[in-house]
């Protein structure tokens, strides 16, 4: 059913992306801009530290009580008239959404931006059952017209420049002339989508935070398409991961601040839309029915591992990818699955399994930029290393596909390295041998070729640092 390729091919796709100067320029420009804007927002390190500590406490505290809070959220929503549904898998979630739509006789759906609906491949499922879906976030609309997937979790069409958008609009929107004027392109999208909003039978959206205390769904955005999708049609279905719950309304202000400032460098997004009830008697607009679909899709398994649980703190701000030297160079599509960049590298292998995304934790230099900017302090590099270990020698059953990674060559190299580094004699002999004969080893030598495929062969020094120090007479060398 899933339209998604089951296997990631990071290495192959990265090679193609690296050879695409236009793609690289598009990402470089965008990431530079986003980094500068975020940097300006958090210029005061004291304020950043205090706010981030509050954000971490809010997310970690809510996760610590996740099962109770989900039940509380469900109770509050029910009291408020919002129907809650639970789905273990994306197939179940798709079936639930389809059922609700079919029961309401809905044929046309307008969508606000939702990464969880991308994770579900919801559009493909609904289209296959004769329900038309229209993305309304400008970026999502553009990539839907182009038949592509998002390449960034906040700015889905970041891989395209305006000339590409101009050509796409001229080709696909009736009566639209070619123009690279961004105002005119935006106005064209507004015109094209207004009718779709008015004629939609249902709106589908994601959720940024679900507040258990009051049963409130919080959605943030700049465009207003999310508000339209959740206000104009008679039916609203929100889909979200089970980890998005917040314990208290008081947790919201610090997290809103961290999220908007980290994501786009704005003090706050243009709209913060807080939905608590369907249309009440006497009210003139708003959907008469609101549904909330809570999707697990592996999250409860992630939750079972105390260390990996931190993955679920994520508020999807994308700062980690904006600052990632790997993501910036290879772009979002290289990651194959829905979530790219550092968060994707820890989330995808846990959700899809190390057997199909096991190479992703390796697509990192462990530079630590992601952990430095993450507003909820997820120790991403630490989790990457943990997942690399799980792929070879699993320590728990928490990680899907654990133990499916590694190779004989990898095992041999590690054994030899361990031996060398635990025996001073062997180490001394080995480094001397390298100094003498290392330069004779051909680049294609098995083992060495893993390195030389993409890099030049290292030049071995004639004498090791240890020997040099000894010769200079350092006493403790």
């Amino acid at each position: 059913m899933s339209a998604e390729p089951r296997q990631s091919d990071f290495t192959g796709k990265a090679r193609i992306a690296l050879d695409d100067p236009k793609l690289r320029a598009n990402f470089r420009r965008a990431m530079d801009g986003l980094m500068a804007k975020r940097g300006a927002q958090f210029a005061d390190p004291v304020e950043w530290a205090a706010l981030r500590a509050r954000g971490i406490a809010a997310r970690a505290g809510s996760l610590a009580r996740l099962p109770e809070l989900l039940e509380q959220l469900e109770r509050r929503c029910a009291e408020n008239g919002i129907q809650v549904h639970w789905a273990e898998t994306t197939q179940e979630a798709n079936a639930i959404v389809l059922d609700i739509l079919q029961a309401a006789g809905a044929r046309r759906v307008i969508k606000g931006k939702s990464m969880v609906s991308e994770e579900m491949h919801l559009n493909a499922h609904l289209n296959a059952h004769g329900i038309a879906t229209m993305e309304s976030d400008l970026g999502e609309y553009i990539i839907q017209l182009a038949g592509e997937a998002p390449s960034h979790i906040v700015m889905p069409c970041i891989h395209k420049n305006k000339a590409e958008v101009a050509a796409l609009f001229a080709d696909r929107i009736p009566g639209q002339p070619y123009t690279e004027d961004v105002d005119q392109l935006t106005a064209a999208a507004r015109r094209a989508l207004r009718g779709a909003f008015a004629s939609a039978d249902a709106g589908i959206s994601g959720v940024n935070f679900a507040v258990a205390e009051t049963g409130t769904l919080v959605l943030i955005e700049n465009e207003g398409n999310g508000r339209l999708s959740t206000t104009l049609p008679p039916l609203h279905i929100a889909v979200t991961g089970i980890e998005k719950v917040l314990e208290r309304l008081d947790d919201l202000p610090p997290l809103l601040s961290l999220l908007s400032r980290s994501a786009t460098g704005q003090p706050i997004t243009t709209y913060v839309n807080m939905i608590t009830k369907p249309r009440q008697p006497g009210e003139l607009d708003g959907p008469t029915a609101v549904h909330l679909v809570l999707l697990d899709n592996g999250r409860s398994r992630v939750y079972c591992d105390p260390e990996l649980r931190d993955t679920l703190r994520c508020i999807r701000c994308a700062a980690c990818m904006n600052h990632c030297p790997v993501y910036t160079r290879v772009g979002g599509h290289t990651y194959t699955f829905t979530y790219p960049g550092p968060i994707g590298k820890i989330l995808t292998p846990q959700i899809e399994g190390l057997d199909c995304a096991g190479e992703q934790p390796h697509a990192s230099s462990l530079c630590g930029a992601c952990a430095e900017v993450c507003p909820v302090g997820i120790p991403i590099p630490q989790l990457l290393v943990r997942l690399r270990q799980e792929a070879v020698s699993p320590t728990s059953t928490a990680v899907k596909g654990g133990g499916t990674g590694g190779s004989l060559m990898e095992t041999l190299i590690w054994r030899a390295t361990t031996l060398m580094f635990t025996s001073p004699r062997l180490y001394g002999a080995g480094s001397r041998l390298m100094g003498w004969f290392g330069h004779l080893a051909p680049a294609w030598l098995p083992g060495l070729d893993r390195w030389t495929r993409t890099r030049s062969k290292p030049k071995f020094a004639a004498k090791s640092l240890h020997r040099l120090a000894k010769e200079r007479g350092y006493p403790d060398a």
Partner: protein
Amino acid sequence: MPEPQPARERILSRLRAAPARALPADPAPGGPVWAPPVHGDARLTRFRAMLEASRAEVHEAGAEDWPEILRTILAAKGVGSVLYAPNTATGRRLAEAWADAPAPTPALVAYDRPVEQVKPMLVERIDAAVTAALGGIAHTGTLVLWPTPEEPRLMSLLPPIHAVVVDRGTVADSLSAVITAERWTDGMPTNAVLVSGPSKTADIEQTLAYGVHGPKELIVMVIG
């Protein structure tokens, strides 16, 4: 009675069975504790500056003369029709003041029927809407809107221009202060919205463009 949901039970039992974990240590031990921002005397200045930074138009007016000032502003923009809420204090004041105003005065259109009966008009044919705000937030330059049966949700969303009337006495320091002062935890309305500027997007080459779906212009009348 809702149907039994086996998925619900399975998810919850997995979560309940998960090992408990100590909360993470304070990442900034001994560091400052986060407190909501306070602006004191600078509150209104900050409110205005932040709104203007996100390209809202801010005007100060008296509790009596704001409809006349707003009329001039809207007329200068060539606004022909204005959606208003006839059964709110703001709406009544507007209708009274504009009743015998000189030309050019925009025509007032009441939003007093369910959206299903007026959708095409709302979506395509209104130039501007006037609503009140429950309050403001100085720190981020934000308007707090609590739509009501008398002043429905779409007023602040569909027309290309949204004019908001906010009482200067209702401008608070921060969202946290509003949540506490207004006791939001006692119960939230059907929909509450924080608005911090006109609708905008930077999806095409990070170039800012306004009015992509919501209002292209936000006019804030700070009164009192």
